[in-house]
């Protein structure tokens, strides 16, 4: 047993003889003694000297022991100052009074030294325990404050990374808690150079900083690649590889990625581990579930990663609805989950599509009895092409020197066509010409259209009229995947030629493919019209570029772009 360390002990006892005796006993046990003859003296001595333990006689003149004990306990506050009542009161009522006044123990007269020593030891142990508890509590509170501050800083950094997004676009509606980042919830949106929109709703494992930290590299890849014109597949591959590389084995990010294209009237979807999203077709009322067909990001190695997407036809009034698992996982007092069925019921009962969020929030509130702050929802629709307003990219060069008189040719063959998307690279190359930068959207759209025509209709031989209706749409993209996988031979050639002109310059783009061609004359006869679901995008090329023409039985396309130098 450990030796008792010396304490300062206050003794309040009105009988002089007993006071003298007790003081001597306590001093002999190694403690320092403060002596008081009545309750008032005791309280005053306590206030001045803050002893660690009190021996208090119950019956005293001026102020009795009960009142003195109450006052001393008040003065002590959070600190435990044990009070041992000295009493030969035997009635239980009197003993109860002692406890109610704050007494922690009793010592009977005649004083027994051994019992007194034991009680002092026991009370002191309690006192030190309370002290430790308070110290630890204060330490925890301090660390908690540090953590909160760290999170604040992390969020500020993240917000700067995420600023290039377009979540405030008119076609996006979302609901997210301010603390979403620290629940691992992520919502990103950005325009591609062609005016399509990429949207990501993600959910990292874990909470707090570990979840938030993974979001930053992911966001940088998403924004960087989307701005350069990379498609979903390449962006997904890059995001997966990055997370796989930097995150610990047991961390990953469930995510749903969308590419919405007003031009092509389609939505491309990839869902890894997220709850079902829904494509709501306003015309039929149908809600197509967008199911998770993939593992979350950051789990599979690059070789094993599956970047295949689903493509659905989408009309201008259709909406895609995504939600995090906070909705499905909401539980009530009996630990029942809200679940998918109840969500379907909300969908079915929803009369005003614009009120879908409110309906869901209300249903959650009714179910759980209170609101949750970690639910993320997003609803996206297509912008009518007229509304497209992608933000202008920012360039880091000084604008002094740029290539004005050059040409380059590429030939992309079988194996390359399967895996490589040359469009971002070609666009970056063209944007070295300053005069073309103002038309980057149109440039990208035209290049993308010509390339995809050359690949899909030319090399793969797909029939564009399949895309006439929604079911055919799905079949078209299935066929595309199958034929691309099986592709061995074939090529797409891209020729770019930039020549200076009197007041600016001219870019000629030629794209050739190894396919069968098409009936150029017939297609050119059709009037220029707005983009249709099917068709070869010939209209688009003719509208955005100049002097568009097709030769070699449709296997070769040519279009021009002009620019003028600003004074």
């Amino acid at each position, binding site marked *: 047993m450990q030796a008792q360390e010396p304490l300062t002990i206050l003794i309040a006892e009105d009988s002089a003889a007993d006071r003298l005796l007790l003081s001597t006993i306590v001093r002999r046990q190694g403690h320092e003694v403060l002596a008081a003859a009545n309750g008032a003296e005791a309280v005053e001595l306590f206030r001045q000297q803050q002893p660690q333990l009190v021996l208090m006689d119950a019956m005293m003149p001026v102020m009795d022991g009960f009142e003195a004990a109450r006052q001393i306990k008040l003065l002590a506050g959070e600190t435990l100052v044990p009070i041992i009542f000295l009493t030969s009161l035997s009635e239980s009522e009197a003993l109860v009074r002692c406890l109610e006044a704050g007494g922690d123990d009793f010592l009977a007269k005649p004083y027994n030294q051994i019992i007194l020593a034991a009680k002092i030891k026991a009370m002191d142990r309690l006192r030190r325990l309370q002290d430790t508890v308070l110290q630890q509590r204060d330490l925890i509170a301090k660390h908690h404050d540090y953590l909160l501050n760290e999170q604040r800083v992390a969020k500020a950094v993240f917000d700067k990374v995420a600023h290039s997004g377009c979540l405030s676009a008119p076609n996006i509606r979302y609901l997210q808690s301010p603390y979403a980042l620290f629940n691992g919830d992520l919502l990103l949106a950005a325009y591609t150079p062609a005016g399509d929109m990429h949207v990501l709703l993600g959910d990292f494992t874990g909470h707090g900083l570990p979840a938030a930290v993974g979001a930053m590299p992911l966001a940088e890849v998403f924004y960087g690649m989307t701005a350069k014109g990379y498609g979903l597949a390449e962006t997904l591959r890059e995001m997966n590889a990055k997370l796989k590389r930097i995150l610990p084995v047991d961390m*990953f990010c469930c995510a749903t990625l969308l590419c919405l294209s007003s031009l092509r009237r389609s939505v491309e979807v990839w869902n890894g581990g997220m709850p079902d999203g829904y494509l709501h077709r306003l015309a039929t009322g149908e809600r197509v579930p967008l199911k*998770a067909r993939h*593992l979350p990001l950051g789990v599979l190695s690059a070789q*094993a990663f599956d970047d295949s997407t689903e493509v659905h036809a989408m009309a201008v009034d259709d909406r895609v609805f995504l939600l995090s698992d906070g909705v499905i996982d909401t539980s009530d007092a009996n630990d029942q989950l809200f679940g998918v069925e109840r969500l379907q019921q909300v969908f079915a009962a929803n009369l005003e599509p614009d009120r879908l969020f409110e309906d869901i929030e209300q249903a959650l509130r009714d179910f759980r009895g209170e609101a949750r702050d970690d639910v993320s929802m997003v609803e996206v629709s297509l912008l009518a092409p007229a509304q497209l307003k992608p933000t202008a990219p920012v360039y880091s060069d000084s604008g002094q020197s740029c290539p004005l008189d050059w040409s380059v040719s590429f030939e992309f063959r079988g194996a390359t066509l399967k895996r490589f998307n040359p469009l971002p690279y070609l666009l970056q190359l063209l944007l070295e010409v300053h005069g073309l930068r103002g038309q980057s959207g149109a440039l990208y759209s035209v290049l993308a259209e010509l390339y995809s025509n050359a690949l899909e209709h030319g090399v793969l031989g797909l029939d564009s009229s399949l895309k006439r209706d929604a079911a055919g749409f799905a079949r078209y993209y299935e066929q595309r995947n199958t034929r691309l996988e099986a592709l061995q031979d074939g090529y797409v050639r891209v020729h770019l030629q930039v020549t200076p002109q009197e007041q600016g310059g001219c870019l000629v783009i030629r794209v050739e493919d190894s396919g069968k061609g098409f009936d150029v004359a017939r297609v050119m006869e059709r009037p220029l019209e707005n983009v249709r679901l099917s068709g070869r995008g010939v209209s688009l090329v003719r509208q955005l570029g100049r002097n568009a023409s097709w030769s070699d039985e449709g296997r070769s396309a040519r279009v021009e772009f002009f620019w003028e130098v600003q004074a």
Partner: protein
Amino acid sequence: MSVVAEVSPDGKKLRISVKGRFDFGKHQEFRNSYERVDPEPNSYELDLKETTYLDSSALGMLLLLRDHAGGDDSDIRVVNPNSDVRKILAISNFDKLFDIT
């Protein structure tokens, strides 16, 4: 003990069962159940018969086990999940990584 591990008599297979909620609180126990088994088993069986619930940290723990057991070369069977647990494994597509029966 809510995580119980049993080695087969020939030492080649380790059977781990998890009782109750499989969540972050089980992290240390779960790792302890397989990390120090010597010699290392060739195959693993994770019995989820008495597992009531699985969250994303449990999925992370499965990935840790898979990594420990040899990654793509691992032989891990997940057996007897109840319907809720099975649904969670399906949504996360973990049936592409693990043999689930």
